[in-house]
């Protein structure tokens, strides 16, 4: 796979290693594929589930399963020709039908936003995809992991991704092993091991080749080892807090822009304090510009047939929890989200500044009740599905989650976010001009975070992609 020079983290080694053992701190499951639930899965899936294109660290599209592409219909329709090497893990040659079936048959709701509006087969190796938006270059959303090509199988592990090489993938309780099929010795066998945070230092002591972590104490320990080098990945996650409420401005076909009262914004000092004290991972104050604050280039209009899919359903509260409690929620398995939510709750409970209260959309009367103890403000962990459902309904006071610092397509993200939330745009509005929506009034940036790669010796080359995900390279 080609990589741009400025995207290289660790140069390719001269000699290939037979086996590379990689430690991931998150709980990694193939069942989630192709949509990663955490950084570990994002790293793993990046190497197992190929997409039609990839983006290098500068956002330049690179061939992956597709070797070439061309546009038509003013950038709304694109034809991509599959690479001759494209194949499933078992060596089955990838065809255009496979791509179409993969997208049509696996209609996970979280894939809908990034998948093309229409797709058709133009030949054995040519796929034609259509989008609601027009793109000057090949649509970057095709590099989204959710747009990966895969198929379900009856044999273990039950799923097969596609790439330019064949793999043998085996799953055990301790690791996922990916070995080159047949007599291919051009790449090593990869062992992906999942370990809990406390055992990551043990893995270093055991001589692991690569460790993906954001634990500062692990990094401190790695720094004491001369045989290991710590490589920081880009700041690729920006944690925000979203307090449900309508956007400050929107337009409809027949009404003028409506202004809503502005909510607060945390200053840089407050963000720095959060990054320094509240978050136990490596963090910094979220740095502007924040892409969601300027979506002026994401023009859409109803005349183009653009409409947001309706959503329904409301997230319920856990049994036994009183309705008087206000909740700042975060996703399970997100320690940074937990730290931030807890700090926001602590600040509010202690009589926080107006900025914090405004960010959480807590009214002064509510704030007094919280401080006096008459009303509770809680930080609460929700499952991934529960979090999504609650965010959709806007049933909680605030949501702490992270956004990609550099999304593949901010316009698609905005479309998805509007479609997903019932509270952002009133239901009677069928078309929204994203340029008029000030997401910044609902999304308050808090901190940026990044991960590190702890690498042993000169056994493997590393680069990173547009979304900050590390990519392995071999001689």
């Amino acid at each position, binding site marked *: 796979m080609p990589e741009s020079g400025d995207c290289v983290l660790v140069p390719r080694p001269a000699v290939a290693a037979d086996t590379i053992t990689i430690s991931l701190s998150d709980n990694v499951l193939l069942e989630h594929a192709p949509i990663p639930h955490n950084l570990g899965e994002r790293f793993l899936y990046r190497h197992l589930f190929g997409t039609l294109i990839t983006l290098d660290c500068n956002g330049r599209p690179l061939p992956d399963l597709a070797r070439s592409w061309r546009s038509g219909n003013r950038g709304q329709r694109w034809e991509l020709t599959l690479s001759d090497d494209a194949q499933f893990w078992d060596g089955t040659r990838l065809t255009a039908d496979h791509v179409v079936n993969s997208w049509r048959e696996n209609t996970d709701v979280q894939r809908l936003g990034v998948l093309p509006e229409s797709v058709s087969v133009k030949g054995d190796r040519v796929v034609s995809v259509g989008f609601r938006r027009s793109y000057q270059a090949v649509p970057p959303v095709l590099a989204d992991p959710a747009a990966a090509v895969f198929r379900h199988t009856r044999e273990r592990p039950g799923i097969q991704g596609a790439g330019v090489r064949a793999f043998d993938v085996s799953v055990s309780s301790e690791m996922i092993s990916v070995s080159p099929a047949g007599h291919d010795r051009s790449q090593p066998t990869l062992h992906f091991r999942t370990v809990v945070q406390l055992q990551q230092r043990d893995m270093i002591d055991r001589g692991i080749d690569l460790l993906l972590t954001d634990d500062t104490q692990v990094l401190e320990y790695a720094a004491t080892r001369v045989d290991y080098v710590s490589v920081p990945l880009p700041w690729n996650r920006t944690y925000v807090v979203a307090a449900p409420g309508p956007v400050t401005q929107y337009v409809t076909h027949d009404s003028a822009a409506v202004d809503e009262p502005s909510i607060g914004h945390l200053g840089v000092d407050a963000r720095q304090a959060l990054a320094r004290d509240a978050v*136990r991972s490596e963090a910094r104050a979220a740095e502007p510009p924040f892409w969601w604050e300027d979506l002026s280039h994401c023009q859409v209009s109803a005349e183009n047939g653009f409409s947001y899919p309706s959503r329904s359903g409301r997230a319920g509260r856990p049994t036994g929890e009183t309705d008087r409690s206000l909740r700042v929620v975060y996703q399970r398995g997100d320690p940074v989200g937990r730290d931030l939510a807890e700090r926001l709750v*602590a600040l509010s409970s202690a009589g926080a500044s107006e900025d914090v209260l405004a960010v959480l959309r807590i009214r002064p009367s509510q704030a007094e009740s919280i401080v006096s103890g008459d009303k509770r403000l809680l930080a609460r*962990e929700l499952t991934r599905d529960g979090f999504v459902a609650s965010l959709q309904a806007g049933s909680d006071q605030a949501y702490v989650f992270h956004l990609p610092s550099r999304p593949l397509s901010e316009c698609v993200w905005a479309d998805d976010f509007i479609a997903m939330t019932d509270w952002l745009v009133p239901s009677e509005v069928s078309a929204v001009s994203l340029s008029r929506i000030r997401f910044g009034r609902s999304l308050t940036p808090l901190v940026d975070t990044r991960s590190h790669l702890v690498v042993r010796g000169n056994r493997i080359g590393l680069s990173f992609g547009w979304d900050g995900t590390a990519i392995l390279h071999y001689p």
Partner: protein
Amino acid sequence: MSLRSRLMMAFTALVVVALVVVGIGIRYNMGLRLTEQFQRRVQALALNIEAELRSESEGIGLTLRALVAEMQEDNRFRQASIQGASSDRQYLLDFAGNAMRLSGLSMLQIQDDSGRIISSGHFRNEYDRREPELLSAMRDSLNGMALVSARTASAPFVALARHDVARIGDRWFSLIGGHSVERQFLNGLAGDQELAVSLVYTDGVASSQAELEVRLSRAMSLLEEEGRVETDIDFGTVFSDQIVTEISLPYVMPRGRERISTATILVTHPLTQLEELRRSIDIWFIAAIVVTAAAALAVATWLSSWLSRPLAELAGKTSIVDLDRLDVGFDRSLKGEVGALSRLLAAMTDRLRDSVTRLRHVERRATTGEIARQVNHDIKNGLIPIRNVLHHLQQLAEEDQNQVVAVLRERQTTLNSSIGYLENLAANYARLYPEVKRQSCDLNSVIGQVGQNVKSEGQIQVRSDLAERLQRVMRDPVFLRRIFENLLGNAIEAVGAGPGDVTILTRSSKDSSGRPVVQTVIGDTGPGMSEEQLEMAFQDFYTTRPGGTGLGLSVVRRLVLDMAGTLKVESEPGVGTRFTIEFPALTSQENHEGLASDSG
């Protein structure tokens, strides 16, 4: 109400009342003893809990003392807390959390001398909050131990806490640490599944038993609505189904930390076990009452039946005794009061029978007198012509002897006529009441002779069922013959032209006294008799047949009684009539002697 009913009611009531008294007594005593036992257990556990809390508090104190030493020796803590080294800021913030995990505490908060939280183990991101009131409240608490509402990001919890202070450099730091008093802790205090330990404090409740926690929570909500939560709560009233003992502890409220209220640890033992036992006893008790009542009823029924049946039989027999029905037998072999009564009745019947015999004799004598007068009259009537002839002849002999022969010849007819009349009269009287001549008789033979002379007409079937080797009787064969002729003739006449059956049956049997008798039954399928007819059937000159004398059955009854036999008649209109005659049978020895005398 009958004797049987009274007996049954009395017997059943007696048994049930006794059972109820026993059941209530058991129930009361069991309740009393179990309640006392439960109270002792609750109080023992309360004492144990107080000791446990003291021990726990001392343990927390020792832990805090050790942490103080650790803080004083820890250079990074010193640098971060005293010198404000930003590089060790995270270390300071995580210090309480790490110390808490190592020491096993559930709550640990470190404040600087201004009351600012510099590190919190249970709520890591609570740092920089000022809360001097907490330390102040802890100082005011009893023995330095208090329940504290500890804030966390997700939900507050109650901890049994103590405090300590550490001097580092010129600054004082306070540590407030403790153990969570959650269900697990309360479970540990309870130790026993039957006993529950609950905590009631101003802001909530917790219990070792989830069900009790829900109840407590509801009760407290109710009290809160009534505005009574601040007053002393009588938990014994709130939990009337529990045995309750209370232990009070100071509680530092989350709002306005300077204020200390009282938390109550409740040790409870449910009375459900007692109630279950009571219910179980009630069920078994009811079952016992039902079974016993049924048994008592059955016994009472049997007993009353056993008592009343012979009395009823005696009453039945007594009711049919009259001067014409003295053949009723009363069992003399019965024992007890009923036996005595039976014997009395038998003796009374015997006396009646003797009296009747004497009466009959008197009647007979009276009748004989009548007959004698009649005979006298008749004889006089017969003798008067003779006396007149003789008187005439005597006159002629004195006056004119020559006329005697002629007159005698002339009056010869008169004399012959009178003599004939007297002879006829004598013959007639001789036939009127023959003399009883007892001898050993075979009833089958007598019946056979009678049967030969009986002529049946029409469709009448005469059937005989004569027992073989029938015992003999010592009776007058002529009388017997007259009896059977009369009865058999009556039976055939009763059936009339038929169709119908006349049956003759002989058999050996025993009377009510157990003595051997020979029984003869003559029955017919004639029209039968009504009760009125039956009552008059044995009266003289009563007849239902045209041309009948009305003396047949009267004579039969007299002949039977004269021969010390018994006669019983059963009749039902439309079904028929059956006569049963019993004569004492000869014993084998008597029989042998009888046969010998016959042959001799």
